[in-house]
């Protein structure tokens, strides 16, 4: 059966419920919120009464958070959609229409869409925190008209944590990855659909807690939560620890699904060498989370235990504060590869289709993704060269610099792919090329951070801020937008407005560079990070950076408006508007509720990136074998 026959099949019965939106569909959201808040306050108050303390102390705040989280989950539909059934109770109906977006459920596509929405909301709020930081830095002194130093510390801590764990950790993996994993692998869903659904519902309370942490005293530690400052900086640190741990658990649930689905649920004929490169990127990221996050979980729990149970892991006579840094950075350096590896893989997914060229050195590109993942496990110490013994420095410097080798494989693969091709540059492709440039700057400047003699000078300066934003904002967020534009027709059946997509890409590139490139200069000139005041000779460059950042921030309204408008009124897209040979493009757009029709399965018979003229189709459709 040919691909076009599959696309022509009437799939209406698989498209799910077509009912229009009704306000009653929001009921699970309202219920979850009500139950969550009630659970929080009830548990926190009872604990405070029993412990003879106040509700904002660390112990009541912890108990309240856990109770509130459980109640939120039950309200969201976890009870009737999963727990009740698991205990042999009544089975809940499948929600296949619009309402599935507003309640817990096993559909990976609606989970992914929820991820996109939450990522956008979190990006907006954490971006507002960034704007607040830049307003504070408009003047060298702490003026007092805007924020106190305490509020400044809280603001950059919340900005850092939420941008990292609330946005870049899940923007590509969650919003793009969870949508595409089953489609690219040729299956209808992931291996544990309910666990994946649960992963999203863990996020809103965690995000809310971190943003609301100033209401119970805030935290002064930045996004690292370093003890012993953590124990002396307000009860808000409890919500920081619990919120961060909850988000990491959500990531872990996704990682198990990524790894399990890739290993066990590939379409017939899809050998590991034929697995789409984006899935390889997700798999490399997932292994990091499964293998390396335990160190950081234990660190977070021990930190929390010091605050609420009276242990002394990091404080007091038996405390080892440096051990926390080891535990923290054991994951949180590789965590940046969780963010960037799927972005790399998206470059390698989009460029062959745009250049109509096979992916160059595919095997080396896969080795690059896996190599970065493996090397990344061993180099967190470069984050605190100023605090460790001389013996550790050269080891971790060498390992860190070695990461540039597998990263180079990925770049060479991308460049080799477009070399000699005729690249069709739409907004998504433009953003990919810009992301490659930005990450190149971020990567090259990272070598200086990894180099001990340079790092001892650059540590804690704005050089580090610039480097990091070039990799994360310049690398990941540019790619995230590219992915949203590229797969927008797959989700909505419509295309974005290309003019405004490209306009924003250039706007983004110009003001991104105006905001962050001067930070390299400011850092070299001695501007310290994490401090609300700076020396007067740095005023002009800070003024320039702040004004640029306001333009950069305001510019994000353009893609938001573009996505929202195009969702309703954009030009209708063909099923495969980019002429891609990816399996996800061989089915209808927008994706039906049941993406692959019952009774027929895709079989992979060739590489999915062979764009040579006359190359045979990489997929055939075969009847599902009877069991």
């Amino acid at each position, binding site marked *: 059966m040919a691909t076009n026959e599959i696309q022509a099949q009437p799939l209406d019965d698989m498209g799910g419920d077509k009912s229009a939106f009704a306000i009653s569909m929001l009921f699970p959201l309202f219920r979850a919120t009500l139950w969550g808040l009630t659970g929080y306050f009830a548990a926190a108050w009872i604990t405070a009464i029993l412990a003879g303390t106040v509700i904002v102390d660390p112990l009541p705040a912890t108990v309240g958070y856990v109770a509130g989280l459980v109640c939120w989950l039950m309200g969201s539909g976890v009870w009737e959609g999963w727990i009740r059934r698991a205990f*042999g109770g009544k089975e809940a109906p499948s929600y296949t229409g619009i309402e599935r977006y507003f309640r817990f459920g096993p559909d990976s596509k609606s989970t992914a869409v929820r991820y996109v929405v939450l990522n956008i909301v979190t990006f907006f709020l954490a971006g507002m925190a960034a704007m607040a930081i830049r307003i504070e830095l408009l003047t060298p002194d702490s003026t007092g008209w805007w924020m106190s130093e305490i509020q400044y510390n809280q603001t950059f801590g919340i900005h850092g944590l939420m941008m990292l764990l609330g946005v870049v950790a899940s923007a590509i993996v969650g919003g793009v990855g969870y949508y595409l994993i089953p489609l690219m692998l040729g299956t209808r869903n992931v291996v544990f659909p309910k666990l994946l659904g649960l992963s999203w519902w863990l996020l809103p309370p965690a995000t809310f807690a971190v943003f609301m942490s100033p209401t119970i005293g805030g935290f002064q530690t930045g996004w690292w939560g370093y003890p012993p400052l953590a124990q002396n900086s307000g009860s808000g640190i409890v919500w920081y620890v619990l919120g961060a741990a909850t988000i990491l658990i959500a990531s872990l649930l996704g990682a198990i699904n990524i790894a399990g689905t890739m290993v066990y649920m590939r379409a017939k004929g899809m050998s590991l060498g034929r697995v789409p490169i984006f899935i390889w990127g997700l798999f490399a990221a997932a292994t990091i989370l499964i293998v390396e996050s335990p160190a950081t979980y234990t660190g977070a729990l021990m930190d929390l235990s010091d605050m609420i149970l009276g242990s002394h892991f990091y404080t007091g006579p038996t405390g080892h504060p440096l051990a926390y840094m080891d535990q923290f950075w054991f994951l949180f350096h590789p965590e940046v590869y969780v963010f960037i590896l799927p972005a790399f893989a998206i470059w390698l997914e989009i460029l062959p289709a745009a250049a109509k060229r096979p992916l160059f050195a595919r095997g080396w590109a896969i080795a690059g993704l896996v190599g970065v993942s493996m090397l990344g496990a061993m180099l967190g110490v470069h984050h605190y060269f100023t605090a460790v013994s001389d013996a550790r420095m050269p080891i971790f410097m060498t390992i860190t610099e070695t990461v540039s080798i597998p990263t180079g494989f990925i770049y060479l693969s991308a460049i080799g792919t477009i070399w000699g091709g005729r690249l069709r540059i739409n907004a998504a492709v433009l953003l990919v090329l810009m992301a490659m440039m930005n990450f190149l700057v971020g990567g090259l400047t990272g070598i200086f951070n990894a180099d001990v003699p340079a790092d001892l000078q650059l540590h804690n300066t704005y050089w580090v801020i610039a480097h990091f934003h070039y990799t994360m904002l310049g690398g990941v967020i540019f790619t995230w937008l590219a992915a949203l534009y590229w797969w927008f027709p797959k989700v909505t059946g419509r295309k974005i407005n290309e003019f405004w997509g490209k306009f924003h890409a250039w706007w983004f590139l110009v003001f991104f560079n105006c905001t962050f490139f001067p930070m390299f200069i400011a850092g070299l000139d001695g501007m310290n990070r994490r401090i609300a005041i700076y020396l007067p000779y740095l005023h002009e460059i800070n003024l320039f950076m702040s004004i640029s950042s306001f333009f950069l921030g305001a510019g994000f309204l353009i893609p938001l408006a573009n996505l929202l408008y195009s969702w309703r009124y954009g030009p209708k897209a063909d099923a495969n508007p980019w002429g891609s040979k990816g399996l996800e493009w061989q089915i209808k757009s927008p994706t039906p509720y049941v993406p692959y029709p019952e009774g027929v399965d895709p079989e992979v018979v060739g590489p999915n990136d062979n764009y040579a003229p006359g190359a045979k189709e990489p997929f055939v459709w075969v009847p599902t074998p009877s069991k």
Partner: protein
Amino acid sequence: MADADNSYARLMDPASERAKRGAFFFLVLFAAIIFAMWDLARFLWGGTAVPSTLNMGVGVGLTVLMLASLVPVVVARKKLDRGDDGGVVSSMAALLVISLVMIGGIVYNWTTLTIGSGYGGIYDITTIWFLVHFVAAILALLASIMKISRTPDRAKRERWVSYNVLTYWGGVAILWVAFFIVFYIA
């Protein structure tokens, strides 16, 4: 209790039993690494000496119990292979009782140590983590037993759940033995 016609649910959960059981090992791997971290941390915070106040008898007793619990695990797996629901339920009920005894022993040993001390802190937090696992095991066993009893047809279609619960228990048993060696003997 009869299942509602919910063909969409079955269609949209296409993973085979092999996939469900295989992918579960990623979760087991994650849990094992967490305990490896606790075991390593014991030497940083707890030194090399085991406090004399720690009740060795309780530790040995709990370890023997965990090793003995592997018998109902093996039996339950065999019964599952054969489709003997009654045998599975009775073996799982035995594991439920063992979970409760383990929780009692863990809580008792907390009273013999001070959490503010180096060894006491790392011992207590590690066993708190075990306690969380036993609570999870109780809920999972209870769910399996109730599902088999109330909806046997559904339980038969979803045997992977019971297999994974038993795998989980086996993993916790191994981790407990490692914990005993590191915290009581080493």
